[in-house]
């Protein structure tokens, strides 16, 4: 039996850690001397939380998993009675309640354990940072919010976590807040997320209107028992929820914040912007699978947005030179795969990919962090190269993660991605094609990243014409101001820069490489829980069976896992491997065999337009800035003018008119009112008694009486003359 107290402690411990470190950071923001205490609090709280999470899952599984475990701690918002449908009424009260089922168990383990590992890594990575304590405050707060998100038993608790992780993301992206690019990126992330949340909350309102509650158990029970009654409204609800998912999980058209979010410290990119927070949208869609399955239209939209995002972001990833930017677009693309999965009904594959992606992408980001750390804050891959000599552990783990994400068997990414593509093939040929192209791009840009970083010779000294700009306060922990190599455009994410003066790259401390190894191992073996029948697994796979209880029957019809013929399955697997190999091969030819990248350069010149388009991310940011940001500001300025001149002008006009109507010159009034009442009191009053005397015979009251009389008169005339 799951203990509700232990369950509550899982999120509360990181919250407590955040509180302790938060007070310490606020009281003494500039020192990092008490680092040991900070680290102990941060690691202790998340570590214990991870252990309790494991214990909770063990007890839940040990208890037979016969049903979801749900516990309401207290009534959070007792909003009262509202109408449901035409004749129904229900209490819309919202409980602060947690729910443990196989889906939340999966997310719980990913969040707590990956979160803990990244905390460990961060103690090494952030050791020399000035705002160390502040950093761990935010990171612990993030853990708390993320755990609320996955543990909540209704949409409202999820929404608290949902907005909360957005806040932490904002604070962490803006961690280097004195740099304008970080501050801008933080705000952009928050506002883009809020646009998504706008859809999410409207979806929640419709859920209340339709079901009279936001409780998962009740909503899904109603929908599952009587699917026909809710099929109509389900499309609207699901599309609104999906708007929220697009914001949080960086899908078209709201993906623009995620690449900029790389302005945050690298552990943040790994934890929040790769492994956990950005997958919240996928979790939400899978959590709402009962509703989504009621609406094939909404499912189709999810699938299309996912597939298009997957290929769109993958093509951008090809042309980026900043190591974190490549990974950021890769994340957007992989999230697209997850939504594609959910959209074609492969809900378990979506969560499966969430899990494997958490392993290899966290590994890749942390590896990139290790590289940046080792290269003194450098993020441009053109200034790297040959790092295999200097950073063997980082190189090995990143290679493993690259193989995993590219989709080579038997590593984790292969199984999850193959399951997605196979199910897509069953449903939509064209989306399958898009997915295959995106998968080719994935393999290409990942190996391009790998070769550019680790193969060949170290190039930092050889890049001509772009001297490292002078750090502002040498010797400090600073972010060197950084100039984009091509167009001089202020580059946004040079986020980590200690040891600016050391020349040779160096391997990172064990707290970082150790974590890399654990994640690399997970990236190797993590896929075996979803091993298909063809490779000696079963149908449905272990992972599918595990999540099956979440996929409630619709009107008595049980959820069917797609099953293809042997031959088809074999062909699909072979094509998956083929596209991965193709991507690797192109990268190999262009960036490994040809150490000077002359072929790549030739291609770039030949397709200059295309390259510029990709490198500038299809100019979407520019478009949004011009149309939406510029439009809103221009409109607001116009309104502000309207307010000051028209609306207030009318008010002042009425005043003047009244004054004239009643035979006062405005001069006289001003003198009486102004000098008479206020200044009069001001200069002559010597103590309160005079003040009161003045107030009693105040000119204001007289004037007001005249005004009032006028209004009475006008009203009376109107009342009498009206028919």
């Amino acid at each position, binding site marked *: 039996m799951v203990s509700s107290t232990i369950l509550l402690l899982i999120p509360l411990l990181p919250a407590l850690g955040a509180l302790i470190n938060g007070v310490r*950071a*606020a009281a003494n923001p500039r020192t990092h001397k008490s680092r040991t205490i900070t680290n102990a609090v941060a690691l202790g709280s998340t570590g214990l939380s991870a252990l309790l999470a494991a214990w909770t899952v063990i007890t839940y599984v040990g208890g037979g998993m016969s*049903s*979801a475990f*749900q*516990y*309401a701690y*207290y*009534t*959070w*918002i*007792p*909003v*009262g009675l*509202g109408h449901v449908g035409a004749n129904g*009424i*229900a*209490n*819309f*009260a919202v409980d602060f*309640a947690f729910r443990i*089922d196989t889906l939340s168990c999966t997310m719980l383990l990913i969040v707590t354990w990956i979160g803990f590992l990244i905390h460990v890594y961060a103690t090494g990575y952030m050791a020399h940072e000035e705002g160390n304590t502040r950093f761990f405050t935010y990171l612990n707060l993030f853990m708390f919010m993320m755990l609320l998100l996955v543990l909540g038993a209704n949409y409202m608790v999820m*929404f*608290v976590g949902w*907005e909360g992780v957005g806040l932490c993301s904002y604070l962490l992206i*803006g961690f280097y*807040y*004195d*740099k304008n690019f970080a*501050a801008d990126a*933080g*705000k952009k992330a928050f*506002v883009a997320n809020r646009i998504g*949340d*706008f859809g999410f*909350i*409207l979806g929640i*309102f419709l859920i*209340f*209107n339709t079901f009279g*509650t936001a409780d998962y158990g*009740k909503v899904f*029970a*109603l929908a*599952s028992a009587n699917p026909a009654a809710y099929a109509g409204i389900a499309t609207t609800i699901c599309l609104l929820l999906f708007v929220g998912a697009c914001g949080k999980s960086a899908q078209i058209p709201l993906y623009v914040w995620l690449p900029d979010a790389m302005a945050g410290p690298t552990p943040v990119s790994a934890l929040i912007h790769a492994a956990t927070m950005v997958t919240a949208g996928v979790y939400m869609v899978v959590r709402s699978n009962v509703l989504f399955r009621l609406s094939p239209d909404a499912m189709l939209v999810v699938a299309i947005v996912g597939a298009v995002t997957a290929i769109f972001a993958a093509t951008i990833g090809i042309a980026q030179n900043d190591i974190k930017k490549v990974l950021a677009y890769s994340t957007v693309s992989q999230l697209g795969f997850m939504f594609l999965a959910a959209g074609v009904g492969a809900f378990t594959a979506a969560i499966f990919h969430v899990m494997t992606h958490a392993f290899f992408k966290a590994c890749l980001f942390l590896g990139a962090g290790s590289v940046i750390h080792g290269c003194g804050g450098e993020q441009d891959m053109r200034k790297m190269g040959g790092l295999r000599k200097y950073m063997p552990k980082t190189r090995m783990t990143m290679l493993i993660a690259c193989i995993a994400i590219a989709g080579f068997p038997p590593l984790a990414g292969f199984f999850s991605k193959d399951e997605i593509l196979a199910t897509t093939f069953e449903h939509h040929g064209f989306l399958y094609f898009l997915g295959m192209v995106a998968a080719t791009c994935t393999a290409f840009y990942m190996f391009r990243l790998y070769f550019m970083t680790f193969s060949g010779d170290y190039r930092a000294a050889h890049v001509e014409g772009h001297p490292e700009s002078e750090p502002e306060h040498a010797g400090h922990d600073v972010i060197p101001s950084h100039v984009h190599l091509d167009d001089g455009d202020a580059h946004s994410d040079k986020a980590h820069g200690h040891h600016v003066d050391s020349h040779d790259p160096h391997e990172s401390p064990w707290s970082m490489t150790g974590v890399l190894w654990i994640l690399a191992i997970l990236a190797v073996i993590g896929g075996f829980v979803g091993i298909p029948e063809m490779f000696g697994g079963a149908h449905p796979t272990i992972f599918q069976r595990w999540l099956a209880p979440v996929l409630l029957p619709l009107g008595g019809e049980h959820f069917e896992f797609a099953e293809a013929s042997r031959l088809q399955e074999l062909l699909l697997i072979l094509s998956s491997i083929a596209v991965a190999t193709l991507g690797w091969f192109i990268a190999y030819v262009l960036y490994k065999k040809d150490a000077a990248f002359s072929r790549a350069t030739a291609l770039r010149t030949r397709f200059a337009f295309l390259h510029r388009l990709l490198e500038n991310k299809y100019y979407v940011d520019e478009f949004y800035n011009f149309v939406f940001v510029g439009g809103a*500001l221009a409109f607001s300025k116009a*309104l502000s003018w309207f*307010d000051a001149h028209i*609306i*207030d002008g009318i*008010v002042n006009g009425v005043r003047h008119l009244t004054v004239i109507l009643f035979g006062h010159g405005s001069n006289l009034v001003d003198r009486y*009112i*102004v000098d008479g*009442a*206020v200044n009069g*009191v001001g200069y002559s009053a010597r103590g*309160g008694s005079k003040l009161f005397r003045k107030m009693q015979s105040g000119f204001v009251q007289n004037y007001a009486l005249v005004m*009032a009389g006028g*209004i009475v008169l006008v*009203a009376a005339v109107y009342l009498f003359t009206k028919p």
Partner: protein
Amino acid sequence: MGILNLVTYIPLIGAIVILFFVRKENGKAIRYTATAFAVIDFIVSLYLWFNFDPHGTGTHLFQFRETYSWIPSLGVQYDFGIDGISLLLILLTTFMGIIAVVSSYSAIDHRQKEYYILLLLLQTGMIGTFCALDFFLFYVFWEIMLVPMYFIIGIWGGPRKLYAAIKFFIYTLSGSVVMLLSILALYFFNDGGIPFLNIKGLGNPATFSVLQYHNIGHLIPPQLQFWIFIGFFLGFAIKVPMFPFHTWLPDAHVEAPTAGSIILAAVLLKMGTYGFVRFALPILPDATKQLIIPIVVLSIIGIIYGALVSLVQKDMKKLVAYSSVSHLGFVMLGMFALNPMGLKGSVLQMINHGISTGALFLLVGIIYERRHTRMISEYGGLAKQMPMYATLFLIAALSSMGLPALNGFIGEFTILLGAANRSIVWASFASVGIVLGAAYLLWLYQRVFWGPLDNPANKTLLDVNRRELGLLLALVVIMVWMGIKPAVFFDVIEEPVNYVVRKVDPAYFDKRPIEYPPAAPVVVSAVETTR
């Protein structure tokens, strides 16, 4: 003397004590006396909180009643009594009263004696307004409030204080005069009718008793209801202020001293919304229903318009002032959803707005005292120089933009849920305000606190002192409390809100409760989830 009289007149006694017993040169004594009375008043008002029965209905809905005969020939009574809505607003007033007094210690350096006397007088006026259950008495307190505020803005205000003070005074007074007409129309209808308008009266004994009008409201012919409502509407909508009657507000806020802005935002604006929920809705149900659409449209315009205009303000205080227009739009929207959710959210949002916007004005005042400018462009990078201040400002901003687990969210969510229950279209438009709220507040925050600290004038700024920290922490504690465990606030307004809903829409609760299939997962629960 009953407890309500005590709460109302303790500030007045304080004002008299300062007037006669404290020398005007002795600034310290004046400040401490004023603080002492504000604190005593708050403590006494807590007695109300702990002795209030949230389940009182019927004749027990209004509690701590005190009724004395006053002018029997006109039917005027001295009638005090509060329900949960007035209770919360009174607590807000006494609490923010302390904040206002203490925040003035260093901000007001000339003519302190008059200042604190006026501040205390203002408090008596505000509390009296929330307690009064007799229209005549209500009107007296309503007008009393205006005068001290007028002088606070006019004497201790900024460069354009005279213009702002007069505008505030005349604008709100014109509204209240029209409201007086409506009160008189009710009075004559209840009594002998209005012969020259051909309106027959009910022939009841003359009275100004609000509760009497609650009972006879539905007897008023719809057309008369409509005109009476218009009168109330002008009086209250100007005070709220609703678009397009809001232009006095930015001027008054920008020119008022910090404490004036705090009280103005926290309490005075709530007079308008309180007026709607206490008088206009329950007395004039037909007119209310008839005018839902225009009022909701104005509220939604206010929400979006206020937020957009906030976005481009260059003066921090003006930005916060316009955000009030947006927030009060939410309050009005929730109210005119006319269901328990909307109304509860509306009442809670009155309190939340008082706390959050009060805190924001206090914060702006703190930085103004140090730098004597409120121009956003003068700042930047303050988070490095004033970390504690930056943290507290962030919390206040997050509370104001409705981040879950802070108070603002509870109000906004409940309001929008209520609005959505009536029309998802209303909720869609109003939710735009939430997105914009994040935009203008975060942009403000970014420009003031983030970025490089490059203005030399800011490099010597001191972080909050103990007095300021104490005030802000008190506000933050309430923000968190109301965000995490708001049930206790919902409890006290449950009955009053249902009372109003029944008055306006008697059939609201006559529906069939939804039944949930016991299917699928077994629910283990500590609290009963279906009530």
